């Protein structure tokens, strides 16, 4: 170690054999080099063979796991969306069915009531027609009776006034001559 006593400016305590500037003291180099390569070699070996592959694997695993979880979540989301869509569809179908059923019921009821109304109307119309026919018959009958009564009454009036039976044919002709007027009245 005692090799550089050339330019000792400082006191040079601590055994005295050092160079003035320790980092440039070449006598320390072999030992430093040896221990540097031992230390750095150990570090490099440990890092490249043990620590870094392990840390890298952990990071890769986590990345893979996160990716897988995300994929799972996406798949579940899709499933949930599909279920929601299916549910929505069944709901819509049920609603449509209910609506059609209600419509059918309404239509049926309407048809039934329409039919009932129709039969009722027909019945009424038939009754009306019958009544009208009866009225017309009664009226014609009444009109023919009126003519007979008028002839009878005219005969009776003539007999009372003239004191003798009147000629029925003349009376009938006389009554008939006024009949259109009275018949129209």
């Amino acid at each position, binding site marked *: 170690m005692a090799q550089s006593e050339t330019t000792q400016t400082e006191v040079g305590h601590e055994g005295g054999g050092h160079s003035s500037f320790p980092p440039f003291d070449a006598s320390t180099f072999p030992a430093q080099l040896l221990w540097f390569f031992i230390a750095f070699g150990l570090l490099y070996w440990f890092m490249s063979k043990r620590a870094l592959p392990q840390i890298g694997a952990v990071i890769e*695993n986590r990345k893979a796991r996160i990716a897988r979880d995300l994929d799972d979540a996406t798949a579940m989301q899709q499933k949930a969306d599909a279920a929601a869509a299916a549910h929505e569809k069944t709901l819509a179908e049920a609603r449509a069915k209910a609506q059609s059923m209600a419509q059918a019921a309404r239509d049926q009821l309407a048809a039934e009531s329409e039919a009932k109304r129709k039969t009722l109307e027909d019945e009424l119309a038939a009754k009306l027609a019958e009544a009208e026919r009866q009225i017309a018959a009664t009226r014609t009958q009444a009109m023919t009776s009126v003519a007979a009564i008028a002839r009878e009454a005219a005969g009776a009036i003539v007999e009372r006034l003239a004191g003798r039976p009147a000629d029925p044919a003349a009376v009938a002709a006389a009554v008939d001559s006024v009949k259109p007027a009275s018949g129209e009245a």
Partner: protein
Amino acid sequence: MATESGPAIDPVHQFSIHPVVPISIAGQDFSLTNSGLFMLLAVALTCLIAAIAARGDSGVPSRMQAMGEMAYEFVAGMVRSAAGEAGMRFFPLVFSIFFFILLCNLLGFIPYSFTATAQIIITASLALLVFLTVLIVGIKDHGVQFFKTFVPPGVPIYILPLVVAIEIVSFLSRPVSHSVRLFANMLAGHITLYVFGSFVIMLLGAGAAIKALAILPFAMTVGLEALELLVAFLQAYVFAMLTCMYLNDALHPGGH
């Protein structure tokens, strides 16, 4: 009044090498010195932290695990950005270099400890390790093509010899700048800290009125300590980043 009896102001004494376990092989001194001891300590600490960080394999990382993964992703990002995906084969090397330097730098902050990265032989070894890796991998992977690194494309033929000469000189001077940068930064930082620390002690040893002035170099020391902490990180980062960029040349020669 300065150096009456106490320790003299010797800012480079902190860099001197002492044997801890004397070992001699074939007449050559291979003692485990304080330098070797602190390198081993840095390696042991790094390995310990890495081992703890690598242990947990749960999906949710523990604190140490998160720290280890952060370091992993940080260095991996650095390698990828500078040397591309192909550079990932040197990821363990860059990772080891970064944390070796960082831990050596940081251990140097402990009072009475030793800063191995303030030894030119250590930084030169690291730089040469990178340099030789670049050279060997470059030639092994690309053969003669590797020397395209020195011939940048698109340069006019009449200045090409000059450019090639400059490129070769700059390539060869890489290990020098690479190693001296780290060495000088750590050395200068520790000397400055020592000098300002000595001022504090000198002033405290002086008369009553001057004692109060000791607060000034003390404040300076505190500030410098923070700065040096930044430098410790920064130089480790710069060294590792340059390693990535040099490796990029080995992987993609001529890819300027």
